[in-house]
């Protein structure tokens, strides 16, 4: 499996995803520069955490217009396996690849700590390594992670079993106290209707290395490996060399 990790200038969990895939799983990963328009034939695209372009306007708002995102959107719409973690989730929502939006945490503060997550749907290419109802401990680290959407959207997402992870307490209950940011219905992660795009606020890559004492998050990457081996999703087409060269010099989403 070859994982492409998009590098926006303000991404800061890109290297962590890289380590999870390479050290944690022993698979290969490559960085995809935000000014490029070549997905280099990767099997999976990851939009990592961080602050893509500073996120001073709205998290992910500007990233969505970067050159690489044009390709990512095509790839994802065409069934390519696409994972957005934290800031990546925000970008996916801004790009309308996932419904809803992520707004400031209800206590208005950045929060970083382990949360309890319940696997709600183990039938996705991101969660097949888990069983439904599994309880994971995975860190969050965000200031804008409160998932909001119209009630009708929420109903639809629930009805289609597209809620993949929910914030829960030690006993696995989705209580208000277990909800770190005020997300609607304790939603921590959702997939699109086709099931090939996952966005989640917690950071599975931070709990993917045994040296750190917890590998609860590695299942996400293991699931992707299985899905790719199964031929699910599709491989991105490398851009013709000329186009790639042009793109590398193209104006970025942000320039001084």
């Amino acid at each position, binding site marked *: 499996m070859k994982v492409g990790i998009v590098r926006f200038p303000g991404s800061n969990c890109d290297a962590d995803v890289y380590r999870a895939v390479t050290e944690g799983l022993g698979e290969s990963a490559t960085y995809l520069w935000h000014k490029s328009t070549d997905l280099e034939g990767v099997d999976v695209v990851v939009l990592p955490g961080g602050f893509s372009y500073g996120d001073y*306007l*709205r998290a992910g*708002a*500007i990233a969505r*217009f970067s050159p690489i995102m044009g390709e990512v959107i095509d790839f994802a719409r065409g069934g390519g396996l696409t994972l957005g973690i934290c800031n990546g989730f925000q970008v996916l929502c*801004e790009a309308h690849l996932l419904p*809803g*939006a992520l*707004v*400031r*945490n*209800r*206590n*208005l503060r950045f929060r970083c700590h382990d949360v309890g997550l319940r696997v709600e749907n183990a039938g996705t290419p991101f969660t097949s390594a888990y069983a439904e109802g599994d309880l994971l401990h995975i860190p969050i680290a965000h200031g804008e992670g*409160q998932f*909001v*959407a*119209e009630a009708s959207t929420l109903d639809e997402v629930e009805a289609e079993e597209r809620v993949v992870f929910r914030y829960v307490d030690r006993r696995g209950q989705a209580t208000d106290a277990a909800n770190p940011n*005020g997300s609607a219905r304790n939603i921590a992660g959702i997939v699109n209707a086709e099931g090939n795009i996952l966005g989640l606020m917690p950071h599975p890559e931070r709990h993917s290395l045994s040296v750190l004492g917890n590998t609860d998050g590695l299942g996400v990457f293991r699931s992707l490996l299985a899905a790719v081996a199964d031929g699910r999703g599709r491989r991105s087409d490398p851009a013709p060399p000329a186009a790639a060269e042009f793109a590398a010099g193209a104006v970025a989403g942000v320039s001084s």
Partner: protein
Amino acid sequence: MSRVWSVDVRVTPREGILDPAGETIRRALGNLGYEGVHSVRAGRLIRLEVEADGAEAAKASTEKMCEQLIANPIIEDYVVRVREG
């Protein structure tokens, strides 16, 4: 003729969307002894200097910017106003 217009964009949380920042300010004002503050909504104010062929054109172009980038219609409403030039 083209000139520069001052344009204000007022972005507010949509009706029905929780506004913890506004709510916090309201509570804090209460604690400071301000009575009679019934509600507080916290939004954003973006002030642009836009070159355009007239107030209408400045407004239209800013509205496009809002749709595309400045506001997120899922959670926010916005109003564009051209200030006296």
